[in-house]
Protein backbone atom coordinates (compact mmCIF):
# COMPACT_ATOMS: atom_id res chain seq x y z
CA UNK A 1 0.00 0.00 0.00
CA UNK A 2 1.40 3.34 -1.00
CA UNK A 3 1.04 6.29 1.27
CA UNK A 4 -2.30 8.04 1.14
CA UNK A 5 -2.35 10.95 -1.24
CA UNK A 6 -5.51 12.82 -0.39
CA UNK A 7 -5.84 11.57 3.15
CA UNK A 8 -2.30 12.38 4.21
CA UNK A 9 -2.49 14.13 7.57
CA UNK A 10 -6.10 14.87 6.88
CA UNK A 11 -6.99 15.23 10.54
CA UNK A 12 -4.28 17.72 11.29
CA UNK A 13 -5.87 20.50 13.36
CA UNK A 14 -6.56 23.67 11.42
CA UNK A 15 -5.97 22.16 8.00
CA UNK A 16 -9.14 23.91 6.90
CA UNK A 17 -7.40 27.26 7.20
CA UNK A 18 -5.24 28.73 4.52
CA UNK A 19 -2.37 29.18 6.93
CA UNK A 20 -1.98 25.53 7.92
CA UNK A 21 -2.75 24.31 4.41
CA UNK A 22 -0.09 26.53 2.96
CA UNK A 23 2.42 25.50 5.58
CA UNK A 24 1.88 21.93 4.45
CA UNK A 25 2.73 22.87 0.89
CA UNK A 26 -0.72 23.93 -0.23
CA UNK A 27 -1.15 26.12 -3.30
CA UNK A 28 2.46 25.44 -4.29
CA UNK A 29 1.25 23.65 -7.36
CA UNK A 30 -0.75 26.62 -8.60
CA UNK A 31 2.29 28.51 -9.76
CA UNK A 32 3.85 25.37 -11.19
CA UNK A 33 0.71 24.53 -13.14
CA UNK A 34 0.11 28.07 -14.35
CA UNK A 35 3.65 28.11 -15.67
CA UNK A 36 2.82 25.14 -17.89
CA UNK A 37 0.95 25.61 -21.13
CA UNK A 38 -2.54 24.32 -21.39
CA UNK A 39 -1.46 21.52 -23.70
CA UNK A 40 1.31 20.38 -21.40
CA UNK A 41 -1.05 20.29 -18.47
CA UNK A 42 -3.71 18.37 -20.36
CA UNK A 43 -1.08 15.97 -21.57
CA UNK A 44 0.14 15.39 -18.04
CA UNK A 45 -3.39 14.70 -16.90
CA UNK A 46 -3.97 12.34 -19.79
CA UNK A 47 -0.90 10.23 -19.19
CA UNK A 48 -1.67 10.12 -15.46
CA UNK A 49 -4.64 7.93 -16.43
CA UNK A 50 -6.85 9.72 -13.92
CA UNK A 51 -10.43 8.65 -14.40
CA UNK A 52 -13.37 10.61 -13.12
CA UNK A 53 -14.23 9.73 -9.56
CA UNK A 54 -17.88 10.73 -9.77
CA UNK A 55 -19.32 7.61 -11.30
CA UNK A 56 -18.82 7.44 -15.03
CA UNK A 57 -15.05 6.94 -14.84
CA UNK A 58 -14.21 8.96 -17.94
CA UNK A 59 -10.62 10.08 -18.43
CA UNK A 60 -10.26 13.50 -16.86
CA UNK A 61 -7.50 14.69 -19.17
CA UNK A 62 -9.41 13.69 -22.26
CA UNK A 63 -12.50 15.52 -21.04
CA UNK A 64 -10.47 18.67 -20.50
CA UNK A 65 -8.98 18.35 -23.97
CA UNK A 66 -12.46 18.30 -25.56
CA UNK A 67 -13.07 21.94 -24.70
CA UNK A 68 -12.60 24.06 -27.80
CA UNK A 69 -9.70 26.48 -27.82
CA UNK A 70 -11.83 29.48 -28.72
CA UNK A 71 -11.87 32.75 -26.87
CA UNK A 72 -15.49 32.49 -25.79
CA UNK A 73 -16.48 32.17 -22.15
CA UNK A 74 -15.69 28.73 -20.82
CA UNK A 75 -16.74 27.29 -17.51
CA UNK A 76 -15.48 24.82 -14.99
CA UNK A 77 -18.07 23.26 -12.73
CA UNK A 78 -17.15 21.20 -9.75
CA UNK A 79 -19.80 18.58 -9.12
CA UNK A 80 -20.15 18.44 -5.37
CA UNK A 81 -23.74 17.24 -5.49
CA UNK A 82 -22.83 13.98 -3.89
CA UNK A 83 -26.17 12.25 -3.52
CA UNK A 84 -25.60 8.66 -4.55
CA UNK A 85 -26.76 6.59 -1.57
CA UNK A 86 -23.73 5.20 0.21
CA UNK A 87 -21.36 7.90 -1.00
CA UNK A 88 -19.88 10.43 1.39
CA UNK A 89 -16.26 10.78 0.34
CA UNK A 90 -16.58 14.27 -1.16
CA UNK A 91 -18.18 15.52 2.01
CA UNK A 92 -15.25 14.28 4.03
CA UNK A 93 -12.72 15.74 1.62
CA UNK A 94 -14.41 19.13 1.39
CA UNK A 95 -14.92 19.37 5.12
CA UNK A 96 -11.30 18.71 5.84
CA UNK A 97 -9.48 20.00 2.76
CA UNK A 98 -11.47 22.86 1.26
CA UNK A 99 -8.35 24.58 0.00
CA UNK A 100 -7.16 21.51 -1.83
CA UNK A 101 -10.37 21.63 -3.84
CA UNK A 102 -9.86 25.30 -4.66
CA UNK A 103 -6.30 24.58 -5.69
CA UNK A 104 -7.50 21.74 -7.90
CA UNK A 105 -10.14 23.96 -9.47
CA UNK A 106 -7.62 26.67 -10.28
CA UNK A 107 -5.33 24.18 -11.98
CA UNK A 108 -8.13 22.34 -13.80
CA UNK A 109 -9.57 25.65 -14.99
CA UNK A 110 -6.20 26.43 -16.49
CA UNK A 111 -6.14 23.02 -18.18
CA UNK A 112 -9.60 23.60 -19.63
CA UNK A 113 -9.04 27.26 -20.42
CA UNK A 114 -12.05 28.10 -18.27
CA UNK A 115 -12.47 31.65 -17.07
CA UNK A 116 -15.28 31.10 -14.60
CA UNK A 117 -15.84 28.34 -12.10
CA UNK A 118 -18.66 27.11 -9.92
CA UNK A 119 -18.86 24.57 -7.16
CA UNK A 120 -22.33 23.05 -7.20
CA UNK A 121 -22.78 21.62 -3.75
CA UNK A 122 -25.90 19.82 -2.61
CA UNK A 123 -28.10 21.92 -0.36
CA UNK A 124 -28.07 19.41 2.46
CA UNK A 125 -24.34 20.01 3.01
CA UNK A 126 -24.89 23.36 4.66
CA UNK A 127 -21.99 23.00 7.05
CA UNK A 128 -19.66 21.97 4.25
CA UNK A 129 -20.78 24.86 2.07
CA UNK A 130 -20.07 27.24 4.93
CA UNK A 131 -16.58 25.77 5.26
CA UNK A 132 -16.04 26.18 1.53
CA UNK A 133 -17.30 29.74 1.61
CA UNK A 134 -14.90 30.57 4.42
CA UNK A 135 -12.01 29.00 2.51
CA UNK A 136 -13.06 30.88 -0.59
CA UNK A 137 -12.83 34.18 1.25
CA UNK A 138 -9.31 33.30 2.41
CA UNK A 139 -8.23 32.21 -1.04
CA UNK A 140 -9.73 35.29 -2.64
CA UNK A 141 -7.99 37.54 -0.14
CA UNK A 142 -4.72 35.75 -0.84
CA UNK A 143 -5.14 36.57 -4.50
CA UNK A 144 -5.40 33.00 -5.81
CA UNK A 145 -8.72 33.68 -7.46
CA UNK A 146 -7.92 36.96 -9.13
CA UNK A 147 -8.38 35.53 -12.60
CA UNK A 148 -11.04 33.01 -11.82
CA UNK A 149 -14.35 34.06 -10.28
CA UNK A 150 -15.42 31.07 -8.22
CA UNK A 151 -18.87 30.75 -6.69
CA UNK A 152 -20.21 28.11 -4.34
CA UNK A 153 -23.71 27.37 -5.56
CA UNK A 154 -25.92 25.52 -3.12
CA UNK A 155 -28.49 23.13 -4.47
CA UNK A 156 -31.72 22.41 -2.72
CA UNK A 157 -32.12 18.68 -2.59
CA UNK A 158 -32.44 16.76 -5.81
CA UNK A 159 -30.46 13.64 -6.63
CA UNK A 160 -30.80 14.23 -10.33
CA UNK A 161 -28.65 17.35 -10.07
CA UNK A 162 -25.69 15.03 -9.64
CA UNK A 163 -26.20 14.12 -13.30
CA UNK A 164 -24.00 16.57 -15.16
CA UNK A 165 -26.60 18.08 -17.48
CA UNK A 166 -29.21 18.14 -14.72
CA UNK A 167 -26.64 19.98 -12.65
CA UNK A 168 -26.11 22.51 -15.42
CA UNK A 169 -29.84 23.20 -15.73
CA UNK A 170 -30.07 23.57 -11.98
CA UNK A 171 -27.09 25.90 -11.95
CA UNK A 172 -28.78 27.97 -14.64
CA UNK A 173 -31.66 28.40 -12.24
CA UNK A 174 -34.06 25.97 -13.84
CA UNK A 175 -35.57 22.72 -12.74
CA UNK A 176 -32.75 20.20 -12.69
CA UNK A 177 -33.90 18.18 -15.66
CA UNK A 178 -31.19 16.40 -17.59
CA UNK A 179 -30.63 17.55 -21.14
CA UNK A 180 -30.35 15.62 -24.32
CA UNK A 181 -26.81 14.61 -25.28
CA UNK A 182 -25.37 15.52 -27.74
CA UNK A 183 -24.52 18.38 -27.49
CA UNK A 184 -22.15 17.40 -24.73
CA UNK A 185 -21.24 19.92 -22.02
CA UNK A 186 -17.74 20.21 -23.40
CA UNK A 187 -19.28 21.94 -26.43
CA UNK A 188 -22.49 23.42 -25.11
CA UNK A 189 -22.83 23.31 -21.40
CA UNK A 190 -23.46 26.01 -18.87
CA UNK A 191 -25.09 29.07 -20.52
CA UNK A 192 -24.49 27.30 -23.84
CA UNK A 193 -20.73 27.69 -23.39
CA UNK A 194 -18.09 24.94 -23.29
CA UNK A 195 -18.01 23.48 -19.82
CA UNK A 196 -15.79 21.05 -17.95
CA UNK A 197 -17.58 19.21 -15.17
CA UNK A 198 -15.60 17.19 -12.66
CA UNK A 199 -16.16 15.53 -9.38
CA UNK A 200 -14.62 16.90 -6.18
CA UNK A 201 -12.23 14.00 -5.69
CA UNK A 202 -11.05 14.19 -9.29
CA UNK A 203 -10.29 17.88 -8.98
CA UNK A 204 -8.52 17.39 -5.65
CA UNK A 205 -6.28 14.79 -7.22
CA UNK A 206 -5.18 17.24 -9.90
CA UNK A 207 -2.63 19.20 -7.76
CA UNK A 208 -1.06 15.90 -6.72
CA UNK A 209 -0.68 14.85 -10.34
CA UNK A 210 1.01 18.15 -11.04
CA UNK A 211 3.28 17.56 -8.08
CA UNK A 212 4.14 13.98 -8.90
CA UNK A 213 4.02 14.26 -12.65
CA UNK A 214 1.56 12.28 -14.70
CA UNK A 215 3.89 9.42 -15.32
CA UNK A 216 4.68 8.64 -11.72
CA UNK A 217 1.01 9.00 -10.77
CA UNK A 218 0.18 6.42 -13.43
CA UNK A 219 2.41 3.93 -11.64
CA UNK A 220 0.08 3.79 -8.67
CA UNK A 221 -2.89 1.49 -8.89
CA UNK A 222 -3.91 -1.02 -11.48
CA UNK A 223 -3.63 -0.90 -15.23
CA UNK A 224 -6.26 1.38 -16.71
CA UNK A 225 -7.31 2.31 -13.15
CA UNK A 226 -4.48 4.39 -11.90
CA UNK A 227 -4.10 6.15 -8.64
CA UNK A 228 -5.81 5.97 -5.32
CA UNK A 229 -9.48 6.20 -4.65
CA UNK A 230 -11.39 7.18 -1.59
CA UNK A 231 -13.96 4.49 -0.96
CA UNK A 232 -16.97 4.98 1.29
CA UNK A 233 -17.93 1.79 3.07
CA UNK A 234 -21.29 1.73 4.82
CA UNK A 235 -24.19 -0.46 5.75
CA UNK A 236 -23.76 -3.56 7.85
CA UNK A 237 -20.04 -3.23 8.56
CA UNK A 238 -18.26 -2.72 11.81
CA UNK A 239 -16.24 0.36 10.84
CA UNK A 240 -18.15 2.37 8.25
CA UNK A 241 -16.22 5.28 6.83
CA UNK A 242 -13.99 6.52 4.06
CA UNK A 243 -10.85 4.65 3.13
CA UNK A 244 -8.28 5.72 0.61
CA UNK A 245 -7.09 2.67 -1.26
CA UNK A 246 -4.87 1.96 -4.17
CA UNK A 247 -7.08 0.85 -7.02
CA UNK A 248 -6.84 -2.86 -7.70
CA UNK A 249 -6.76 -4.27 -4.17
CA UNK A 250 -9.07 -7.16 -3.45
CA UNK A 251 -12.55 -6.10 -2.40
CA UNK A 252 -12.42 -8.60 0.46
CA UNK A 253 -9.42 -6.85 1.94
CA UNK A 254 -11.28 -3.55 1.76
CA UNK A 255 -14.48 -4.85 3.29
CA UNK A 256 -13.11 -7.24 5.87
CA UNK A 257 -9.65 -5.81 6.45
CA UNK A 258 -10.31 -2.07 6.58
CA UNK A 259 -14.01 -1.84 7.36
CA UNK A 260 -14.11 -4.82 9.67
CA UNK A 261 -16.66 -6.89 7.81
CA UNK A 262 -20.25 -7.50 8.85
CA UNK A 263 -21.22 -7.57 12.52
CA UNK A 264 -20.38 -10.65 14.58
CA UNK A 265 -22.36 -13.69 13.61
CA UNK A 266 -23.64 -12.22 10.40
CA UNK A 267 -22.75 -12.96 6.81
CA UNK A 268 -22.86 -10.80 3.78
CA UNK A 269 -26.03 -11.35 1.75
CA UNK A 270 -25.00 -9.06 -1.08
CA UNK A 271 -23.14 -5.85 -1.58
CA UNK A 272 -23.18 -2.83 -3.85
CA UNK A 273 -19.65 -2.16 -5.10
CA UNK A 274 -20.30 1.35 -6.41
CA UNK A 275 -23.24 3.04 -4.78
CA UNK A 276 -26.86 2.07 -4.91
CA UNK A 277 -27.03 2.22 -8.69
CA UNK A 278 -24.49 -0.50 -9.29
CA UNK A 279 -25.69 -4.04 -9.90
CA UNK A 280 -25.29 -6.04 -6.70
CA UNK A 281 -22.65 -8.70 -6.13
CA UNK A 282 -22.95 -11.71 -3.84
CA UNK A 283 -20.61 -12.94 -1.15
CA UNK A 284 -19.02 -15.25 -3.71
CA UNK A 285 -17.77 -12.26 -5.61
CA UNK A 286 -15.74 -10.71 -2.81
CA UNK A 287 -12.40 -11.46 -4.40
CA UNK A 288 -12.92 -9.25 -7.40
CA UNK A 289 -10.13 -6.65 -7.48
CA UNK A 290 -11.47 -3.17 -6.77
CA UNK A 291 -10.77 -1.35 -10.02
CA UNK A 292 -12.78 -0.14 -12.98
CA UNK A 293 -12.14 -2.98 -15.42
CA UNK A 294 -12.39 -5.89 -13.00
CA UNK A 295 -15.70 -4.64 -11.68
CA UNK A 296 -17.04 -4.19 -15.18
CA UNK A 297 -15.97 -7.77 -15.92
CA UNK A 298 -17.85 -8.94 -12.84
CA UNK A 299 -20.98 -7.30 -14.21
CA UNK A 300 -21.00 -4.27 -11.97
CA UNK A 301 -19.16 -1.01 -11.61
CA UNK A 302 -17.10 1.10 -9.24
CA UNK A 303 -19.32 4.11 -9.82
CA UNK A 304 -18.68 6.67 -7.14
CA UNK A 305 -16.72 4.20 -5.04
CA UNK A 306 -19.31 3.51 -2.41
CA UNK A 307 -19.59 0.04 -0.98
CA UNK A 308 -22.82 -0.83 0.79
CA UNK A 309 -22.86 -4.09 2.64
CA UNK A 310 -26.16 -5.83 3.28
CA UNK A 311 -26.00 -8.71 5.72
CA UNK A 312 -28.24 -11.71 5.97
CA UNK A 313 -30.50 -10.21 8.62
CA UNK A 314 -32.16 -8.22 5.82
CA UNK A 315 -34.56 -9.23 3.14
CA UNK A 316 -33.71 -8.55 -0.46
CA UNK A 317 -37.28 -7.37 -1.14
CA UNK A 318 -37.11 -4.68 1.52
CA UNK A 319 -33.82 -3.39 0.13
CA UNK A 320 -35.22 -3.47 -3.40
CA UNK A 321 -38.29 -1.51 -2.34
CA UNK A 322 -36.18 1.03 -0.49
CA UNK A 323 -34.03 1.42 -3.56
CA UNK A 324 -36.91 1.66 -6.01
CA UNK A 325 -38.76 4.16 -3.80
CA UNK A 326 -35.65 6.28 -3.70
CA UNK A 327 -35.34 6.35 -7.47
CA UNK A 328 -39.03 7.01 -7.94
CA UNK A 329 -38.76 9.93 -5.55
CA UNK A 330 -35.73 11.27 -7.36
CA UNK A 331 -36.84 10.69 -10.95
CA UNK A 332 -37.19 14.11 -12.50
CA UNK A 333 -40.20 13.00 -14.55
CA UNK A 334 -38.91 14.20 -17.86
CA UNK A 335 -38.69 10.95 -19.78
CA UNK A 336 -41.35 8.30 -19.85
CA UNK A 337 -39.55 5.03 -19.06
CA UNK A 338 -37.91 6.39 -15.94
CA UNK A 339 -40.94 8.25 -14.61
CA UNK A 340 -43.41 5.45 -15.17
CA UNK A 341 -41.00 2.54 -14.82
CA UNK A 342 -39.78 3.50 -11.34
CA UNK A 343 -43.36 4.13 -10.30
CA UNK A 344 -44.50 0.78 -11.60
CA UNK A 345 -41.63 -1.09 -9.96
CA UNK A 346 -42.44 0.44 -6.59
CA UNK A 347 -46.09 -0.48 -6.95
CA UNK A 348 -45.29 -4.08 -7.76
CA UNK A 349 -42.83 -4.34 -4.89
CA UNK A 350 -45.38 -2.84 -2.54
CA UNK A 351 -47.90 -5.36 -3.65
CA UNK A 352 -45.39 -8.14 -3.05
CA UNK A 353 -44.75 -6.75 0.39
CA UNK A 354 -48.44 -6.66 1.16
CA UNK A 355 -48.73 -10.34 0.29
CA UNK A 356 -50.50 -10.02 -3.02
CA UNK A 357 -47.53 -10.80 -5.24
CA UNK A 358 -47.28 -13.73 -7.60
CA UNK A 359 -44.21 -15.20 -9.31
CA UNK A 360 -45.50 -13.67 -12.53
CA UNK A 361 -44.92 -10.25 -10.98
CA UNK A 362 -41.21 -11.06 -10.87
CA UNK A 363 -41.21 -11.70 -14.60
CA UNK A 364 -43.11 -8.50 -15.24
CA UNK A 365 -40.79 -6.57 -12.98
CA UNK A 366 -37.72 -8.01 -14.65
CA UNK A 367 -39.14 -7.12 -18.03
CA UNK A 368 -39.95 -3.59 -16.84
CA UNK A 369 -36.31 -3.20 -15.83
CA UNK A 370 -35.25 -4.43 -19.25
CA UNK A 371 -37.53 -1.94 -20.88
CA UNK A 372 -36.09 0.92 -18.83
CA UNK A 373 -32.44 0.13 -19.48
CA UNK A 374 -31.12 2.04 -22.46
CA UNK A 375 -34.38 3.79 -23.26
CA UNK A 376 -34.07 6.74 -20.90
CA UNK A 377 -32.85 10.26 -21.37
CA UNK A 378 -30.23 10.01 -18.62
CA UNK A 379 -28.86 7.24 -16.47
CA UNK A 380 -31.23 7.59 -13.53
CA UNK A 381 -33.67 5.03 -14.90
CA UNK A 382 -30.84 2.61 -15.54
CA UNK A 383 -29.56 3.27 -12.04
CA UNK A 384 -32.68 1.69 -10.63
CA UNK A 385 -33.18 -0.91 -13.30
CA UNK A 386 -29.69 -2.37 -13.12
CA UNK A 387 -29.52 -3.18 -9.39
CA UNK A 388 -33.16 -4.28 -9.22
CA UNK A 389 -32.67 -6.40 -12.31
CA UNK A 390 -29.54 -7.98 -10.81
CA UNK A 391 -31.37 -8.64 -7.53
CA UNK A 392 -34.19 -10.45 -9.30
CA UNK A 393 -31.68 -12.40 -11.32
CA UNK A 394 -29.46 -13.41 -8.41
CA UNK A 395 -32.03 -13.73 -5.65
CA UNK A 396 -35.12 -15.07 -7.33
CA UNK A 397 -35.55 -17.91 -4.78
CA UNK A 398 -35.42 -15.37 -1.96
CA UNK A 399 -38.03 -13.24 -3.68
CA UNK A 400 -40.33 -16.21 -4.11
CA UNK A 401 -39.79 -17.36 -0.55
CA UNK A 402 -40.60 -13.87 0.68
CA UNK A 403 -43.78 -13.74 -1.39
CA UNK A 404 -44.86 -17.06 0.01
CA UNK A 405 -44.25 -16.01 3.61
CA UNK A 406 -45.99 -12.69 3.07
CA UNK A 407 -48.97 -14.35 1.53
CA UNK A 408 -49.30 -16.45 4.64
CA UNK A 409 -49.04 -13.39 6.89
CA UNK A 410 -51.62 -11.57 4.82
CA UNK A 411 -53.96 -14.53 4.86
Amino acid sequence: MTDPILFKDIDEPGLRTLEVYRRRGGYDMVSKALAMTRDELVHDLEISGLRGRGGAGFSMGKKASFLPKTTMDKYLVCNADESEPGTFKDRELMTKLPHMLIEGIIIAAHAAGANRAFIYIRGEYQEVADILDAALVEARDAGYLDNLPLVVHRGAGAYICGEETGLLDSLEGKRGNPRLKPPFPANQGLYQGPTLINNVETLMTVPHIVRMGGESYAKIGAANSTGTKVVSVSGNVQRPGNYEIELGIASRELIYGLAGGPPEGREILFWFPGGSSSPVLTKDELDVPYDFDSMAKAGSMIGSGAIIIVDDSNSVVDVALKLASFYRHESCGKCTPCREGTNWTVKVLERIQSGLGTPMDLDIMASVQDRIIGNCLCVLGDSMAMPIGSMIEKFRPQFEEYMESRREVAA
Partner: protein
Amino acid sequence: MSIEVRRYEHGSRVPGWDEAADLSKDPAQVPDPATTPVPEDLRAEIEAHMANYPDHRSAAIPALAAVQRRYGWCTPEGIEQAACVMRLTPAYLVAVATFYDMLETRPVARHTIYVCTNISCSLRGADELLAAFKDAGDEQEFNIRGFECLGACDIAPMASVNGVYVGPVTRDEVPEVIAALRQGREVLPDKHLVKRPVADPNAQT
Protein backbone atom coordinates in the same frame (compact mmCIF):
# COMPACT_ATOMS: atom_id res chain seq x y z
CA MET B 1 -59.50 -10.96 3.67
CA SER B 2 -58.82 -8.10 1.33
CA ILE B 3 -55.70 -6.10 1.69
CA GLU B 4 -55.87 -2.50 0.69
CA VAL B 5 -53.46 -1.64 -2.04
CA ARG B 6 -52.18 1.85 -1.60
CA ARG B 7 -53.72 4.02 -4.19
CA TYR B 8 -50.86 6.33 -4.63
CA GLU B 9 -47.66 7.07 -2.84
CA HIS B 10 -47.94 7.66 0.90
CA GLY B 11 -51.54 6.52 0.66
CA SER B 12 -52.67 9.97 -0.27
CA ARG B 13 -53.43 11.98 -3.30
CA VAL B 14 -50.70 14.03 -4.86
CA PRO B 15 -50.80 17.66 -3.76
CA GLY B 16 -51.79 20.00 -6.51
CA TRP B 17 -53.34 17.52 -8.86
CA ASP B 18 -56.89 18.30 -7.83
CA GLU B 19 -56.44 22.04 -7.86
CA ALA B 20 -58.18 24.15 -10.47
CA ALA B 21 -57.24 27.69 -11.35
CA ASP B 22 -59.18 30.36 -9.54
CA LEU B 23 -60.80 32.20 -12.40
CA SER B 24 -61.37 35.32 -10.36
CA LYS B 25 -57.63 35.95 -10.13
CA ASP B 26 -55.60 37.88 -12.64
CA PRO B 27 -52.99 36.04 -14.64
CA ALA B 28 -49.65 35.84 -12.85
CA GLN B 29 -47.34 37.90 -15.00
CA VAL B 30 -43.99 39.31 -13.97
CA PRO B 31 -44.86 41.29 -10.83
CA ASP B 32 -44.77 45.03 -11.39
CA PRO B 33 -42.36 46.80 -9.05
CA ALA B 34 -44.92 49.57 -8.65
CA THR B 35 -47.42 47.29 -7.01
CA THR B 36 -45.17 44.69 -5.36
CA PRO B 37 -43.41 45.94 -2.26
CA VAL B 38 -40.24 43.97 -1.47
CA PRO B 39 -38.45 44.17 1.88
CA GLU B 40 -35.17 45.98 1.35
CA ASP B 41 -32.95 43.34 2.93
CA LEU B 42 -34.53 40.58 0.88
CA ARG B 43 -34.08 42.59 -2.26
CA ALA B 44 -30.44 43.27 -1.39
CA GLU B 45 -29.75 39.60 -0.71
CA ILE B 46 -31.35 38.44 -3.96
CA GLU B 47 -29.59 41.10 -5.97
CA ALA B 48 -26.27 40.07 -4.44
CA HIS B 49 -26.90 36.51 -5.56
CA MET B 50 -27.90 37.68 -9.02
CA ALA B 51 -24.60 39.50 -9.36
CA ASN B 52 -22.73 36.21 -8.87
CA TYR B 53 -23.81 34.74 -12.19
CA PRO B 54 -23.61 35.71 -15.85
CA ASP B 55 -27.34 34.94 -16.16
CA HIS B 56 -29.40 36.33 -13.32
CA ARG B 57 -31.81 33.40 -13.45
CA SER B 58 -29.10 31.24 -11.89
CA ALA B 59 -29.92 32.92 -8.63
CA ALA B 60 -33.31 31.20 -8.51
CA ILE B 61 -32.40 28.64 -5.88
CA PRO B 62 -30.46 31.06 -3.65
CA ALA B 63 -33.31 33.55 -3.96
CA LEU B 64 -35.90 30.97 -3.00
CA ALA B 65 -33.69 29.86 -0.14
CA ALA B 66 -33.56 33.48 1.00
CA VAL B 67 -37.35 33.70 0.82
CA GLN B 68 -37.61 30.51 2.83
CA ARG B 69 -35.24 31.79 5.46
CA ARG B 70 -37.25 34.94 5.80
CA TYR B 71 -40.77 33.57 5.83
CA GLY B 72 -40.20 30.02 7.05
CA TRP B 73 -41.35 28.61 3.73
CA CYS B 74 -41.70 29.77 0.14
CA THR B 75 -44.90 31.72 0.58
CA PRO B 76 -46.75 32.89 -2.53
CA GLU B 77 -46.07 36.47 -1.47
CA GLY B 78 -42.39 35.72 -0.94
CA ILE B 79 -42.18 34.07 -4.35
CA GLU B 80 -43.84 37.08 -5.91
CA GLN B 81 -41.32 39.35 -4.24
CA ALA B 82 -38.40 37.28 -5.46
CA ALA B 83 -39.96 37.16 -8.93
CA CYS B 84 -40.31 40.93 -8.87
CA VAL B 85 -36.63 41.41 -8.04
CA MET B 86 -35.50 38.84 -10.58
CA ARG B 87 -37.90 40.03 -13.30
CA LEU B 88 -39.34 36.54 -13.72
CA THR B 89 -42.84 35.24 -13.45
CA PRO B 90 -43.73 33.71 -10.11
CA ALA B 91 -44.61 30.53 -12.00
CA TYR B 92 -40.96 30.19 -13.01
CA LEU B 93 -39.90 30.25 -9.39
CA VAL B 94 -42.66 27.97 -8.15
CA ALA B 95 -41.67 25.43 -10.80
CA VAL B 96 -38.15 25.51 -9.44
CA ALA B 97 -39.24 25.50 -5.81
CA THR B 98 -41.43 22.43 -6.16
CA PHE B 99 -38.67 20.52 -7.93
CA TYR B 100 -36.33 20.57 -4.98
CA ASP B 101 -36.89 18.72 -1.74
CA MET B 102 -35.50 21.38 0.57
CA LEU B 103 -37.69 24.21 -0.67
CA GLU B 104 -41.04 24.09 1.07
CA THR B 105 -44.07 25.37 -0.79
CA ARG B 106 -46.44 24.66 2.06
CA PRO B 107 -46.21 25.97 5.60
CA VAL B 108 -43.84 24.01 7.84
CA ALA B 109 -42.60 24.20 11.39
CA ARG B 110 -39.56 26.22 12.39
CA HIS B 111 -37.10 23.44 13.22
CA THR B 112 -36.23 20.98 10.53
CA ILE B 113 -35.12 17.47 11.32
CA TYR B 114 -34.25 15.40 8.28
CA VAL B 115 -33.71 11.76 9.14
CA CYS B 116 -31.88 9.87 6.44
CA THR B 117 -33.87 6.77 5.60
CA ASN B 118 -31.95 5.58 2.62
CA ILE B 119 -30.36 2.16 2.29
CA SER B 120 -27.25 2.53 4.42
CA CYS B 121 -29.05 4.24 7.24
CA SER B 122 -32.11 2.03 7.13
CA LEU B 123 -29.86 -1.03 7.35
CA ARG B 124 -28.82 0.41 10.70
CA GLY B 125 -32.22 1.31 12.03
CA ALA B 126 -33.13 4.64 10.47
CA ASP B 127 -36.79 3.80 9.99
CA GLU B 128 -37.19 3.19 13.71
CA LEU B 129 -35.32 6.40 14.43
CA LEU B 130 -37.66 8.38 12.19
CA ALA B 131 -40.65 6.83 13.92
CA ALA B 132 -39.16 7.77 17.27
CA PHE B 133 -38.67 11.37 16.12
CA LYS B 134 -42.20 11.56 14.83
CA ASP B 135 -43.50 10.29 18.17
CA ALA B 136 -41.42 12.70 20.17
CA GLY B 137 -41.83 15.98 18.32
CA ASP B 138 -45.09 17.57 17.32
CA GLU B 139 -45.78 18.88 13.88
CA GLN B 140 -46.41 22.46 14.92
CA GLU B 141 -42.91 22.81 16.21
CA PHE B 142 -40.82 20.41 14.18
CA ASN B 143 -40.64 19.66 10.50
CA ILE B 144 -39.63 16.02 10.75
CA ARG B 145 -39.06 14.31 7.44
CA GLY B 146 -37.57 11.09 6.27
CA PHE B 147 -35.03 12.22 3.72
CA GLU B 148 -33.16 10.61 0.90
CA CYS B 149 -29.46 9.86 1.39
CA LEU B 150 -27.87 12.78 3.21
CA GLY B 151 -24.36 11.62 2.42
CA ALA B 152 -23.35 10.65 5.92
CA CYS B 153 -23.62 6.87 5.87
CA ASP B 154 -20.55 6.63 8.13
CA ILE B 155 -22.60 7.92 11.04
CA ALA B 156 -25.75 5.94 10.25
CA PRO B 157 -28.40 6.29 11.45
CA MET B 158 -28.16 10.02 11.40
CA ALA B 159 -30.19 13.17 11.19
CA SER B 160 -29.67 16.66 9.93
CA VAL B 161 -30.98 18.93 12.64
CA ASN B 162 -31.43 22.46 11.33
CA GLY B 163 -28.64 21.71 8.88
CA VAL B 164 -26.25 20.23 11.42
CA TYR B 165 -25.37 16.60 10.84
CA VAL B 166 -25.41 14.45 13.97
CA GLY B 167 -25.01 10.73 14.33
CA PRO B 168 -25.12 7.94 15.02
CA VAL B 169 -28.33 8.82 16.84
CA THR B 170 -29.90 6.14 18.96
CA ARG B 171 -33.58 6.10 19.71
CA ASP B 172 -32.83 6.91 23.35
CA GLU B 173 -31.26 10.20 22.32
CA VAL B 174 -34.33 11.44 20.48
CA PRO B 175 -35.95 13.13 23.51
CA GLU B 176 -32.64 14.85 24.21
CA VAL B 177 -32.50 16.22 20.64
CA ILE B 178 -36.04 17.52 20.91
CA ALA B 179 -35.37 19.05 24.32
CA ALA B 180 -32.14 20.66 23.13
CA LEU B 181 -33.95 22.25 20.19
CA ARG B 182 -36.72 23.54 22.41
CA GLN B 183 -34.22 25.08 24.79
CA GLY B 184 -31.97 26.42 22.07
CA ARG B 185 -29.01 24.31 23.14
CA GLU B 186 -26.51 22.68 20.85
CA VAL B 187 -27.80 19.30 19.72
CA LEU B 188 -25.71 16.28 20.74
CA PRO B 189 -22.43 18.22 20.71
CA ASP B 190 -20.31 15.04 20.82
CA LYS B 191 -21.91 13.61 17.78
CA HIS B 192 -21.39 16.40 15.28
CA LEU B 193 -20.14 15.05 12.02
CA VAL B 194 -17.69 17.86 11.33
CA LYS B 195 -15.81 16.99 14.49
CA ARG B 196 -15.24 13.36 13.54
CA PRO B 197 -11.82 12.11 12.43
CA VAL B 198 -11.43 10.10 9.26
CA ALA B 199 -12.03 6.37 9.71
CA ASP B 200 -9.07 5.36 7.54
CA PRO B 201 -6.27 4.06 9.82
CA ASN B 202 -3.67 4.92 7.17
CA ALA B 203 -4.57 8.61 7.19
CA GLN B 204 -2.72 9.44 10.36
CA THR B 205 0.75 8.91 9.00
